[in-house]
């Protein structure tokens, strides 16, 4: 029963109500432009933003809540977790501030409190407190156009495919987030190319945690293997030295 958000780009009018609602719900402070911010509107105090593209397109950017998140695999202390409800949540008590999650995210979502002396990682948590209790996130709740809706992921996928089928030519025949890097819990329907939301235009369907899995699985083998190899090498060399020593002694005896 993994929950998800479906955002229909063609319906969004760019009113920014979702941004305001997000700020209020998560008690985010007012934002000041900082040198370390990206120009996509997201920041430590802005967990969702509207990107305007030429031709009246408004794209809401937020954490994608991947089904197999790279950040969750990356975090060395498990401060980031994928919950059953679909949200990727953050536990600031565990975090040690290594920022590996920020490096690992293919969408460049997590932001950092660079100006704080006690900084945390900040990103959309899909209003986890609300969806846990059966409510929906603030952003989908307030949307006046129904451009961004919340629901069961499978049902949303059905809705998305229905919309594509019912309005031929209106959408690009693709639900963004259905399969890329294992799928995400934030889906997009769009009439323009949305590949600018990620670092690479062709993400592929392979989940990112699978890239490190072979290396991590071979860790015990490498550990034991290297130990065995070194012991074996040591044994051979010692044996050789002994042999040559004996030979030398034999020779010495013969010479005498």
């Amino acid at each position: 029963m993994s929950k998800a958000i479906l955002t229909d780009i063609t319906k969004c009018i760019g009113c920014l109500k979702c941004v305001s609602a997000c700020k209020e719900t998560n008690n985010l402070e007012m934002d000041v432009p900082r040198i370390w911010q990206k120009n996509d509107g997201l920041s430590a105090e802005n967990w969702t933003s509207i990107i305007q593209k030429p031709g009246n397109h408004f794209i809401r950017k937020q954490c994608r809540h991947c089904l197999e998140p790279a950040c969750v695999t990356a975090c060395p202390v498990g401060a980031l977790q994928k919950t059953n409800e679909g949200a990727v949540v953050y536990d600031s008590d565990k975090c040690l501030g290594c920022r590996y999650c920020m490096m690992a995210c293919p969408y460049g979502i997590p932001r950092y409190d660079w100006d704080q002396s006690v900084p945390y990682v900040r990103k959309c948590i899909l209003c986890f407190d609300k969806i846990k209790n059966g409510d929906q996130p603030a952003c989908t709740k307030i949307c006046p156009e129904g451009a961004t809706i919340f629901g069961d992921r499978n049902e949303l996928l059905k809705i998305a495919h229905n919309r594509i089928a019912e309005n031929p030519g209106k959408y690009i025949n693709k639900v963004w987030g259905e399969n890329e890097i294992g799928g995400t819990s934030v889906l997009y329907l769009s009439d323009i190319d949305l590949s600018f939301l990620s670092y690479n235009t062709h993400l592929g369907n392979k989940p990112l945690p699978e890239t490190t899995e072979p290396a991590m699985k071979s860790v015990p083998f490498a550990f034991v293997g290297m130990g065995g190899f070194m012991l074996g090498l040591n044994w051979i060399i010692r044996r050789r030295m002994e042999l040559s020593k004996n030979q030398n002694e034999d020779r010495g005896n013969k010479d005498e």
Partner: protein
Amino acid sequence: MNRVQNTKIILWLITGFAAAVGLNRFIFGLGATTNLTDSTPWGLWIGFDVMGGVALAAGGFVMTAIFYIMKREEFHPLVKPAVLTAFLGYMAVILGLLFDLGLPWNIWHMIIFWNPHSPLFEVGWCVMLYSAVLLLEFSPVPLEKYSRYAKIRNFLMKFRFVFVLLGIMLSTLHQSSLGSLFLIMPFKLHPLWYSNILPIQFFLSAVALGLMMVAFESLASHWLYKRKPETSLVEKLGKTVVWVLSIYLIVKIIDILAAGEITIVLNGSWESFVFISEIFISIIFPIIIFSVPKMRRNIKAQWIGSFMVVFGMVFNRINVGGLTMLSITGDSYTPSWMEITISLGVVSAAALVFLFVIEHFNIWDLKPQDPESLPHTAPSFDYSSHAWLGTPDAASLTKFSLAFVLSFAVGMALMPEKKLHGKGIEEITVSRASGIERLLINGNKDDNLVEFPHKEHIARLGEDQCAQCHHLTLPRFIENSCWECHTNMYKPVDYFKHNWHASSSGANIKCDNCHVEGVQRESKSAKNCVDCHPKYDFNNARFIGSQKYFAISYTDAFHQLCVSCHFIKADELNKQNLTECKSCHKVKIHDQVAENLKWKTTLPHFNSVILPNIEKEKNQSEMSKDEKENINN
């Protein structure tokens, strides 16, 4: 004597300087110290201090493998310095990491909160375990000096082989898993460096780097203490490194060919240039130098060859660690001078400890004469101040502490005020109002330009009313662009930094200094800014006066300015479309939004769109008309 002492003074100077900067980092955070950004969260401290530092410490496990496992007894003089370097290297890595981590006091969390899927978790554990093993491996050396610890020492010596073996096994994991860290970033890391076998490449390059680091260190410390260089040993290391580098080169070439990236190598981008130079510096030139017997024996060639490998491999770590991600993330990153200072400071501190240990414990088969405690050296006398500096030992201590304190003070003095107080607010220089006919304003920096009739505004508002737009100048700025106060498009913005004023590291003002005693503490009952800062006269800023500490939102500010006149003109010329959004905004606003924006209705987030008093404005504009006519006449 001078050579050692001068080197130490330089190292102390750097350490003191870095200590001051380090203090700044812990008080004011990463943003005030580094140039890291949301798209470049790892910078010099990870690329050089951690990635490079671990790689530089590889000499420890390579030398112990050669000496203890492969029983090459002739390398004995190099083993202890190598293990010492490895230990200090790891300490430096941990120290560097403490600066880089956002919450360094949580570094121990890895012990109790486990995530075995994370490569960083493995790296962290390897650092912890290997540092402990190195300590056990090395501690017999300092313990040798004290006879009362003989039992412990003997105990440790018994298990030395186990420690060595464990050290090699942990290092293998650790060096390779530093490469695994980047496997999860196939979209960020440049394809020339990204590879499925990054861990193997990292391990191979670490072995090569370890060998050459030991060689370089031997050459350097012998130069420093004017000892006979261990040329023959370095030569043997050179012979070995040729093999390792060749394997590394072949692996790299096969990897590039298999991925079909040969065209990227030659496409002339700056990455391809970096890649080719990295290959030549770290692999090809050293192979040439160390495979020609004549050069291999030449001490100058040894210096160059070993330095090339060390430099080239650290360069590789920096490239993988973030440098080659820049074009993909579209960000620019240059380490700030404070980042560079702290990196250098960590290295200098480690070097000082290294020199101390070398001088006081039995590291080399022949201990260098401690140049500062030679009995026949005369006490230092400073001719300029006619002061005795005490015994040579105390004199050098005086000099070192002086160097440290001096550079610490300089570091504190150089701390940029902007970094301390502004905490990274983007600095936009706005050119002085030129008063030309029409300006294209990109005030919100989103490239949506609106036409702004500047001259008309001056005429309408009056020559002395510049402050309405070019209103009060905040500290540190000569001119402000509109949005430095109106930072939010839709909300009134607090530009009075209350927390900064109250915090002890900021202005350190007591509550009662601003808020009147006995009255509830709120902005209404507080002092006005101008009471403390006579420079900022708020009386000229009309809009700000109404809400003492708030600048109205950017949208409101500009709408107030433009819309009033539009309404007047629309009535005058009977052109109702002048009141529509598209008469100013080049980018078409969605009809539905525009519908809502009829100025009578206000959406909650377009709060307080205050329509100016049209009658009053009318009078003003008539006045300005009269003035215009006067001017024309």
